[in-house]
């Protein structure tokens, strides 16, 4: 039997990243994510790889882009204020289709906000933080084992779809030490892409819905990578037809594979009359509340989103066919609440438990809200 370990959430992320063969980290210290950088600064150099602390978060993600284009698997970790600075390069990575993984250990905001307190208020920033229409994948683990598995999944998805993937982590989960049984090396699935030989330097040439091919950059072909809207060669263009095609290609590479990307967990949902929609640390409070409510005979279940972007729209719509009462529990002033409102019909009674003062919900608070139905 595998030995259980007691590890901090941040360290679980770092260990999972190494298991996923991450071999480059560029970052900038910020509470509450610094342990990830510290762990990587110790481990990567002795494996023969590089860790670098850059001059700011903009440069951190910039260095990640450079390393990723050179063929490395890259990670950076930050928190709200740093994530705000990274939005510029996040957009460039989406546009030029560069794989990278960003961990955002969320803290209270806006601005420097509440540096040592948890918050779930960067959800919309993860979706729409960088300007322009763009596809994005954001994962949201809630338990120690999920932090490990979702980090590995983040690398796999970013490599497969050539898109940045964001891991949203709650401050309490990042700082808490929990027991975890790490999986064996052989049990970890790591996505390995085929390296396509590039014909005629058409690096972005593909059919709608197809995965982008792996780019053989810096091999002297010579390839051009651009942050401007580009054609199939990567050369800047503003031809409306080409722009339309490229926009569609980028969006559809994600939306054609929703089954694979969207992951969620359900608890006590078989006969539920009330559904709680939650994620991260709030999902853990909610799960405890669901168990308490079940003891009292209240038929309530929990829908825990593991993939927060793209939003689990299709499975939720399916649930709303039977369940007519939904409670959204999130540590912010109301963000996914509006997504739920968008996808549920008027016949669904909607309530939300919201708070953004840096204190996570207790199960009793969630239970009291359930009783309000």
């Amino acid at each position, binding site marked *: 039997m595998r030995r259980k370990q007691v590890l901090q959430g941040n360290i679980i992320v770092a260990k999972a990243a190494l298991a996923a063969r991450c071999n*480059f980290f*560029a970052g900038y210290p910020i509470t509450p994510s610094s342990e990830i950088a510290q762990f990587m*600064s110790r481990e*990567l*150099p*002795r494996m*023969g*790889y*590089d*860790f*670098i602390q*850059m*001059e*700011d978060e*903009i*440069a*951190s*993600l*910039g*260095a*990640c*882009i*450079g*390393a*990723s*284009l*050179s*063929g*490395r698997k*890259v990670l950076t970790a930050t928190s709200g204020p740093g994530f705000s600075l990274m939005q*510029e*390069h996040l*957009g*460039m990575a989406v546009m*030029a289709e560069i794989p990278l993984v960003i961990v955002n250990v969320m803290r209270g905001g806006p601005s420097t906000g509440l540096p040592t307190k948890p918050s779930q208020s960067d959800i919309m920033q993860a979706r729409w933080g960088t300007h322009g229409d763009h596809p994005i994948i954001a994962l949201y683990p809630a338990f120690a084992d999920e932090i490990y598995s979702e980090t590995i999944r983040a690398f796999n998805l970013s490599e497969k779809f050539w898109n940045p993937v964001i891991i949203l982590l709650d401050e309490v989960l990042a700082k808490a030490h929990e027991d975890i049984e790490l999986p064996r090396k052989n049990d970890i699935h790591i996505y390995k892409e085929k390296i396509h030989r590039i014909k005629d330097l058409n690096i972005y040439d593909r059919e709608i819905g197809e995965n982008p091919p792996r780019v053989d*950059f*810096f*091999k*002297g*072909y*010579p*390839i*051009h*990578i*651009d*942050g*401007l809207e580009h054609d199939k060669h990567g*050369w*800047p263009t503003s031809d409306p037809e080409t722009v339309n095609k490229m926009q569609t290609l980028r969006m559809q590479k994600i939306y054609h594979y929703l089954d694979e990307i969207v992951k969620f967990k359900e608890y006590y949902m078989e006969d539920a009359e009330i559904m709680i929609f939650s994620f991260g640390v709030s999902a853990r409070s909610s799960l405890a509340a669901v168990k308490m409510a079940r003891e009292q005979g209240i038929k309530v279940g929990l829908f825990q989103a593991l993939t927060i972007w793209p939003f689990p729209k299709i499975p939720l719509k399916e649930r709303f066919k039977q369940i007519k009462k939904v409670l959204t529990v999130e540590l912010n002033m109301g963000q996914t609440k509006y997504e739920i409102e968008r996808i549920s019909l008027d016949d669904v009674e909607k309530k939300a438990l919201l708070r953004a003062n840096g204190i996570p919900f207790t199960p009793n608070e969630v239970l009291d809200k359930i009783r309000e139905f």
Partner: protein
Amino acid sequence: MVQQRTNPLRKYIRNRKLPHFFCPGCGCGQILNYFLKAVDDLQLDFKKIITIGGVGCTARIPIYLNTDSLHGVHGRTLAWATGIKLYRPDLKVVIFAGDGDLVSIGGNHFLHASRRNLDVTVILVNNFNFAMTGGQVAPTTPFNSVTMTTPYGSKENTIDVCKLAVSAGATYVSRWSTAKPIQTVKSIKKALQHKGFSLVEILSQCPTNFGRYALRTGDPEKVLEWIKNRSISKTKAEKLNEHELKDKFILGEFIDKKRPVFQGTTLFKEEDN
């Protein structure tokens, strides 16, 4: 019969990207030529060069070069170069940046790349203004110049990029102008062969914007004349006092020394040669 001859440097150009987008009389075309001349003279392997540009007129140069090239957001060229260079130290990284790109929005990255002595070559084209956006004030715009955002004259002091680079730790720094092709090509050659952070600042004419607004002439020759009149060689400058050097551009090599280059943090790297 007239024999058709093509420029021997055309082999380094992405022909399908021509014609280029530079204004008539712009210095960027000259600098493109100087760079290619330097590469050709040194017989460098063009497949082992990466050219990088951020945003700006100068930053467009990599689009026309038939190398692996990267062209992205404003001012972050040195950040990408750091990531590239750590994994591919065998490649020569050349950054084309304007004054706004390098020392305005990218000033922080410039300081730290110099400090680290990152092994890249930066070709800074200083045309004294933000040209692509239509001629606004830059950190290099001379005091009291009229630009599109300083209609009553700029009230800010300028930055001496070469001095800044030297004090931050760059190991090869020189300044020339488009009016000095021979020295510029020689300097680019030295920079390309230099191991460490090398900066070649080239003062360049922007007749369309800086010329028309600040100098009240759209004539490239007159703008170049203005640069020439204000330029003074380093040896001559050494004999002059601070007052006499006011508003002068000192041309020459400011530093050429060896210092260990940044090789990342890995414990498995060969010694610096």
